[in-house]
């Protein structure tokens, strides 16, 4: 039943119509069938997945109380530490590293009985928007295997889109969940900063990173969101407040009387025609459901991309310093008489990919004495302006919206030689990260010019994640009834290469 939603799988498991082992095997079979084309997974953890499934089945047989997603398979972005399972963050520098501990997200998934199928491909250390920056080769978009699935959580998005897993975990530092969700025609949510523990999430940019859920439906995404969210004393930036009731919101889905703000700065120039067409149609749909559409002005968003490409590289230049060949990971250049320093130098040269090095150097520059105020310092101030613009906008609207990505899935190799063009892929998603608020991307249809999925982005204030699901569920229901099924059912069949 791999084509079903996670909610349907959950109910079939609860009713005893299927076992978790059987469900898990179906997904492992699907992975075996299509992943040679999609290349969503870096590591398929067959043994552990089946053991976890069997354990959930045994618990269920014994009548134990189980969570809603117990026994449902999931794909995990390789940026999250899982004890004993290779965890590379898509980097050669961590090839074959097996953490001696579980990230909090993994611990929560295990406790909820979710079956982890394996680790998914990603741009190295989550730096990228196409998954082409993986140290282990790119992932391919299930809608068109010549195109990227977006990134950096491209492996997770592709796995869900290709029915290799019903749900997946990604991480979103500048759009790394929402943009690949948009490009693969699924739902992805970047929760409020501090809502999901970062403990065990390999850091790219500490003040921007946040793990979050992918699903093929708004409800599936909410069910996963509810499992991974919550306060964690191991993360000092974790919010100690009640988690928003996202599942309830996903089940209600009512926009009557809500004000929906369209951000002036996140449309127009640079946005593909088909993207704008689907976006505007979605607005009309929301309007027809009783929402009031208003336009809001966020002038500082013009500078969000620049601020992001200073803050994230600065933090990463420090976060990635620990990869030094001393305690774990790759070690090269250990010829006779080589010093620790030269081994560090040559290992970091060999272990990091081009984009990672580029960002480390940029961050090192932005933080260096004499340049700090002009670059990092200014970027932090822009960040304040963006927060203020959002605050003001949220007094005028309950949620804000924009296209998730200015363009649909692009060709593999199309932008990999032009860093600036690649950075522009995140132009609409980045403000959410800088402000620490939450955002969702859900399918808005296919662009007429290329028949590829378009994402509709919803943004809500910090710890108001339920608003995303409420609006998302309402829009999804209307669109699905218009299309006669979920958008993902229109994806081309895979497995042809087999």
């Amino acid at each position: 039943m791999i084509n079903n939603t996670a909610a349907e799988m959950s109910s079939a498991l609860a009713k005893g119509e299927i076992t978790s082992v059987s469900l898990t095997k179906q997904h492992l079979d699907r992975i075996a069938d299509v992943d040679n084309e999609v290349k969503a997974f870096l590591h398929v953890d067959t043994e552990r997945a089946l053991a976890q499934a069997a354990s959930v089945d045994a618990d269920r047989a014994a009548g134990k109380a189980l969570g809603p997603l117990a026994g449902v398979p999931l794909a995990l972005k390789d940026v999250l530490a899982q004890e004993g399972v290779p965890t590379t963050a898509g980097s050669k520098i961590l090839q074959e590293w097996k953490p001696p501990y579980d990230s909090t997200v993994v611990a929560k998934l295990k406790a909820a009985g979710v079956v982890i199928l394996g680790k998914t491909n990603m741009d190295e250390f989550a730096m990228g928007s196409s998954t082409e920056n993986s140290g282990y080769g790119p992932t391919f978009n299930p809608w068109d295997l010549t195109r990227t699935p977006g990134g950096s959580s491209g492996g997770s998005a592709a796995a869900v889109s290709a029915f290799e897993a019903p749900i997946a975990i990604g991480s979103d530092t500048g759009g790394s969940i929402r943009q690949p969700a948009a490009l693969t025609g699924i739902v992805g949510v970047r929760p409020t900063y501090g809502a999901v523990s970062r403990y065990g999430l390999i850091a790219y940019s500490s003040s921007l990173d946040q793990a979050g859920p992918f699903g093929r439906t708004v409800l599936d995404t909410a069910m996963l969101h509810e499992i991974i969210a919550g306060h964690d004393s191991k993360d000092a930036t974790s919010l100690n407040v009640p988690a928003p009731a996202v599942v309830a919101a996903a089940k209600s889905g009512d926009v009557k009387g809500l004000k929906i703000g369209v951000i002036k700065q996140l449309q127009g120039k640079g946005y593909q025609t088909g993207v704008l067409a689907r976006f505007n149609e979605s607005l009309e749909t929301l309007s027809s459901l009783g929402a009031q559409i208003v336009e809001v002005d966020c002038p500082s968003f013009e500078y969000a991309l620049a601020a992001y490409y200073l803050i994230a590289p600065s933090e990463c230049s420090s976060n990635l310093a620990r990869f030094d060949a001393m305690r774990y990971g790759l070690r090269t250049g250990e010829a006779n008489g080589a010093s620790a320093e030269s081994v560090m130098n040559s290992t970091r040269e060999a272990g990091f990919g081009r984009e990672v090095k580029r960002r480390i150097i940029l961050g090192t520059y932005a933080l260096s004495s004499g340049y700090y105020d002009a670059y990092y310092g200014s970027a932090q101030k822009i960040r304040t302006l963006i927060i203020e613009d959002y605050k003001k906008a949220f007094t005028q609207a309950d949620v804000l919206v924009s296209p998730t990505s200015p363009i649909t899935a692009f060709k593999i190799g199309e932008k990999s030689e032009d860093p600036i063009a690649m950075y522009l892929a995140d132009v609409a998603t980045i403000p959410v990260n800088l402000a620490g608020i939450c955002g969702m991307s859900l399918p808005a249809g296919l662009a007429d010019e290329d028949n590829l999925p378009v994402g509709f982005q919803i943004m809500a204030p910090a710890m108001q994640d339920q608003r995303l699901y409420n609006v998302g569920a309402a829009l999804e229901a209307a669109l699905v009834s218009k299309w006669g099924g979920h958008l993902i059912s229109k994806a081309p069949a895979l497995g042809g290469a087999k």
Partner: protein
Amino acid sequence: MSSLSRDEVAKLAALARIEMSEEELVNLASQFGSILDAVARVQELNLDGVKATSHPQPLENIFREDVVLPSLSPDQALSGAPAQEEQRFRVPQILGEAE
């Protein structure tokens, strides 16, 4: 137009402990101009009197109690070590002085 010379890139690479080939240094230096132009936009606005934000949520005073919890076993701690000896991480000779 911003720019960064090959030597400046080399200095940054040394600070970041990344050994770079001549070709890489020259390439990166040539790309840096346009990247710096893009990020230098943060200087376009008058930011006098604007506070810097380093944490997206307004949290303060997040502490843990001074309580000891079990550590990793030495085997776990050393499990990823490229080399080890006498329950310690073995590393090449260290140049310079300890801080």
